């Protein structure tokens, strides 16, 4: 005896309805246009090679805070920060009077395979920050680093503490060797030198497949079967498609920077264990003395909280705040809860400093 009690007639009706709903969804997908690089008005204010610095148009009263520079990860595209009007961390920050800049690393091509972490952490991030400092007439900026961009922001702040007034780290891996970190367990076994030697740049598709493999059934089969539940709701289908586009919009990774990031952070865990050098200069987290806000997600399958929490006590900052968001790695940007909670938390924290 089992719990299986499926009536054939009911199952036939169920499948017929499923097919009908999926067909409706397909018809909608054919006409929904989700080509977008974000939804909020913005202007390109600086460009160096493929790196572009965007400044967003603020319509609410100025909060009078130093400009906020968002440093996104090299993997995936930064428009996740401004995906659609009702799912936009950037809009939330603008509404609170912040002056928001976003760094877009672009799509590395074969000629960029030599780009190293030094280029990203010191040169591109540095010149973007310098541009903002100069344009806004400020000595230092507020820096918000996202995921891998958070790790890079920590490195920048350690190397150039004078440029960073406050640092917000969002879903940022710090200790790469905690037990819950499945991605790290896999990556530690990879011969990254050989991979980069053979591939040059590392295909974004490969990274994307790896991310999906962390929870393969939930992130594919279950998600796609769930489309049937959205059929008939055009807005929900558009949201789904927008997210789907973002997931599959994975830039290739500049080979040298990728190799360094994998080896130094994932495999050797140098940010925590020590010995990290970027551009020939020692990265000592204790040189980070600015106030720190560490935001992480309790159900993050890519950067588990245990990877982010060790930021506490790692730096020389005496002003450390942790904020736990009840959600996942993507939900922290796009969930309904996040839309109000995250911008408010960040803005209020910055206002006090």
């Amino acid at each position, binding site marked *: *005896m*089992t*719990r*299986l*009690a*499926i*009536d*054939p007639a*009911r*199952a*036939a009706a*169920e*499948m*017929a309805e*499923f*097919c*009908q709903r*999926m*067909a409706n969804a*397909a*018809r909608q*997908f*054919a*006409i*929904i*246009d*989700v*080509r977008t690089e974000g939804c909020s008005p913005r202007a390109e204010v600086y460009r160096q090679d493929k790196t572009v610095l965007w400044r967003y148009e603020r319509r609410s009263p100025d909060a009078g805070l130093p400009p906020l520079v968002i440093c996104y990860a090299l993997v995936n595209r930064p428009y996740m920060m401004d995906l659609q009007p009702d799912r936009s961390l950037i809009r939330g920050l603008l509404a609170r009077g912040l002056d928001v800049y976003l760094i877009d690393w672009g799509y590395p091509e074969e000629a960029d395979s030599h780009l190293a972490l030094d280029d990203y952490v010191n040169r591109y991030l540095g010149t973007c920050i310098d541009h903002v400092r100069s344009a806004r007439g400020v000595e230092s900026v507020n820096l918000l680093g996202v995921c891998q961009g958070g790790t890079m922001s920590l490195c920048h702040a350690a190397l150039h503490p004078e440029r960073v007034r406050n640092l917000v780290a969002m879903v940022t891996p710090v200790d790469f060797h905690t037990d819950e970190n*499945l991605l790290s*367990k*896999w990556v*530690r*076994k*990879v*011969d990254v030198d*050989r*991979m980069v030697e*053979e*591939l*040059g740049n590392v295909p974004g598709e490969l990274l994307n*497949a790896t991310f999906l493999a*962390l*929870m*393969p*059934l*939930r992130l*594919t*089969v*279950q998600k*796609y*079967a769930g*489309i049937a539940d959205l059929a008939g709701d055009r807005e929900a289908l558009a949201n789904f*498609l927008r997210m*789907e*586009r*973002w*997931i*599959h*919009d994975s830039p290739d990774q500049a080979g040298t920077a990728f190799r360094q990031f994998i080896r130094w952070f994932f495999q050797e865990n140098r940010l925590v264990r020590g010995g990290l050098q970027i551009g020939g200069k020692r990265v000592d987290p204790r040189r980070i003395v600015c106030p720190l806000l560490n935001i992480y997600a309790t159900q993050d399958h890519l950067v588990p909280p245990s990877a982010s929490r060790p930021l506490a006590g790692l730096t020389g900052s005496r002003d450390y705040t942790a904020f736990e968001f009840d959600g996942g790695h993507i939900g922290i940007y796009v969930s309904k809860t996040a839309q109000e909670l995250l911008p408010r938390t960040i803005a209020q924290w910055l206002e006090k400093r």
Partner: protein
Amino acid sequence: MPANIPATPWLHAWLEVERAFSEVSMQGAKGSDPVAQGMRRLMEFGNDYAGIAADCWPKLQAGNLDLDGLRASLVERYQRFLMPAVAPSPAAAIPLATSAAFLRYQQASQRFGRQVAAIALEAFRRLSESIGTNAPDATPITSLRELHELWIECGEAAYSAAAHGDEFAEAQAELLASLVELRREQLPRR
């Protein structure tokens, strides 16, 4: 759609769904290439759900839907799902058949395949346990969707338990390394 799916009352409708998604995937213009990629994956994985439903179908019609009868198809389907889709094309594989890189790839693929087979069997064991009447939650499963959801839950749990282990990570890394090496043999040196 796999060729061995038997005729069902909803098969025609599902083929229509496939056609519709294929058109979206080919269209590309409205949604851009990343969306087209998503549509292709969607159908790839949508087939899994429809495929499981199709596997159940003849047994449902005969009034004897029991889990043991689904064992082979569920396990085989999950193994196929977990194996990487990347592999040398048959045409390229022929001249490579005796190369060291190809042999390494074959060995790596077999090693990873053993991991995957164990995961699929464990997933089925968990499903059987959950469906057994002695399970604490004895709520009847009355729809294919519920059965599929439970299968996903069990499959994910079995996968997670194995994927955190060294052997899985090593087998996966070796498979990746062998594919990279194979690619080097297939392509002219840069």
